[in-house]
């Protein structure tokens, strides 16, 4: 088990390094940041001076080693656009994004899993058809379309909810719905099909033959088995959710990490992009690591292979 964890951690660290390097190279391919940082009519000498002060004139290998060694000291550099330390910028904006992602993630599990179970247990009932019909709509409509439709309905027509910003809890409602709807739908459908698969298993009959009530049969014997594939998908969803905040924060003018990254990309703000991608990649990799480890808790057959 511990050898497995060490192996997985090493793999995770390698993946993070790979992503860092890839992003470093890709940002350098996007072009010259000074195009956006200086007015159009700035002279070539001014541009060259700015490049020197940003360190962009040095060989790329040197820039790279500086960047990596700076990471170890915790120095993330300064934003080209905001002219403030990158760490500070992210610290300011991490709260709203994390709140959004965490609540959305919790909602997705809290609604997705039970809806899936109920639909499976009442297979082919009206309830099943209704929830599954809605969930197909939920994950086929792109989230930005859904967000824009909600702004149109709740902000412009009904004037119930604010369309952008984050000053009150009301501001969170539409971004949350937009971010969650796709995950709830997906988790519900997967839980349902996984549950249907398990509901056919003979060990449920042997539990019934022991005199176990139907509730125990479903929630103890069936669910524990049905959750194994669901947990993988839940883990992947945290990843897509963090990516999803980019879209949602843009649609709802929500000042979080997602919108910071979009702005950074527009301005070729290399330090911000690099740091942002590192945070997102690290989170996703860590979550996947946790998912892998949780299989062992759920399924003893996998535990033996660790």
């Amino acid at each position, binding site marked *: 088990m511990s050898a497995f964890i060490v192996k997985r951690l090493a793999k995770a660290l390698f993946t993070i390094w790979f992503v860092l390097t890839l992003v470093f190279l890709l940002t350098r391919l996007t072009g010259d940041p000074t195009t956006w940082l200086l007015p159009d009519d700035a002279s070539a000498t001014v541009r060259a001076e700015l490049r020197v002060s940003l360190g962009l004139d040095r060989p790329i290998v040197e820039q790279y080693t500086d960047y990596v060694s700076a990471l170890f000291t915790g120095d993330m550099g300064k934003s080209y656009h905001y002219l403030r330390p990158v760490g500070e910028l992210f610290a300011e904006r991490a709260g709203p994004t994390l709140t959004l992602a965490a609540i959305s993630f919790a909602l997705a599990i809290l609604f997705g899993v039970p809806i899936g179970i109920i639909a499976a247990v009442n297979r082919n009932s009206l309830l099943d058809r209704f929830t599954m019909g809605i969930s197909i709509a939920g994950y086929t409509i792109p989230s930005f379309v859904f967000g824009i439709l909600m702004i149109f309905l709740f902000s412009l027509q009904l004037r119930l909810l604010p369309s952008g910003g984050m000053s009150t809890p009301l501001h969170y409602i539409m971004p949350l719905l937009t971010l969650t709807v796709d995950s709830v739908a997906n988790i519900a459908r997967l839980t349902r099909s996984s549950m249907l698969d398990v509901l056919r*298993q*003979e*060990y449920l*009959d*042997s*539990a*019934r*033959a*022991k*005199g*176990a*009530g*139907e509730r125990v049969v479903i929630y103890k*014997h069936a669910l*524990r*088995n049905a959750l194994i594939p669901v947990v993988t998908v839940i883990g992947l969803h945290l990843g897509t959710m963090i990516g999803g905040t980019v879209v949602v924060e843009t649609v709802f003018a929500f000042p979080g990490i997602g919108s910071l990254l979009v702005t950074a990309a527009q301005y070729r703000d290399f330090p911000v992009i690099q740091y942002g991608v590192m945070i997102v990649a690290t989170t996703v990799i860590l979550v996947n690591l946790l998912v892998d480890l949780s299989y062992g808790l*759920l*399924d*003893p*057959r996998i535990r*033996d292979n660790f």
Partner: protein
Amino acid sequence: MTMENVLTVNNLKTYYFSKNNVTPAVDGVSFRLLRGEVLGIVGESGCGKSTVARSILDLLDRSYAKIQGGEILFHEHDLLKLKKKDLNRIRGKKISMIFQNPQSSLNPVFTVGNQIAEILNIHERMTKQETKARVIELLRLVGIPAPETRLTSYPHQLSGGMQQRIMIAIALACNPEVVIADEPTTALDVTIQSQILALMNQIKTKLRMGMLLITHNMGVVAEMCDRVMVMYGGVVVEQGETASIFASPSHPYTKGLLASIPSIKEDKEELYSIPGAVPKLTVPVNHCRFADRCPHAFGKCHESEPPFFEVENGHQAKCWLLEDTAGRTHNG
């Protein structure tokens, strides 16, 4: 042996419903199981023997199977009229079941100790220590070596034979009055089969419970059963004491089953098999269900279904060939 009935099934009818037709999977089966006896139900796949077993504990798939009539009496309580909650007090506690496939009948994500303890937790008031002690005692009873260390094993860490021993331990946990064993050795290797049969033989004499043993194997019947019922096409075609049935099989189907057992004494090239396959029936049936495959069938066999004819004391068969030689019984 006391002649007390523990389980009485009267005219049980369990039908399978599909879009186009109704199949009489069990079509009017009646029997009694006495305390301490082993009653065998034997027949080919699809004859309805497992459906009888599953009907008793209400384990049918409700999406297509329905009990259309009859009574299943445990002592004097009709199980078909019990509320789910009351039935759950009997399931596992008074009537327990051993399934065909131990590998898929044990839940893969719980330890075997946990799965045996579960049935005790449902039915008995025991402390944790008492439960653990009882689980170890049961594991020892079914011949699991080093029971203390096996408690924390998961099903996949055990062999098929060991898994079936665990299933037997679960079935015996609450000292039930009836154990239903649905093909308990079919999924196992031949050498393991005989070990499991020996274990069941030893347990039945020790614990004096009634056992309903479902099998397609006449060898198993000979070894285990006091009485036997031969099922075909959803009905019992012959029943009686095992010795009597083996000595004088009276229904052509039973004769065919016995002739299909390979023998080392006779030097035959080919195994005997009954020609044809189990028929697809739809209700109502008004002919002998075996007529199409029967070498002795005559006009009457295709026109009406035979009642039971008494062959000798307690030994009865449903065959028109017996009409002239045997006495007609009332429960036909």
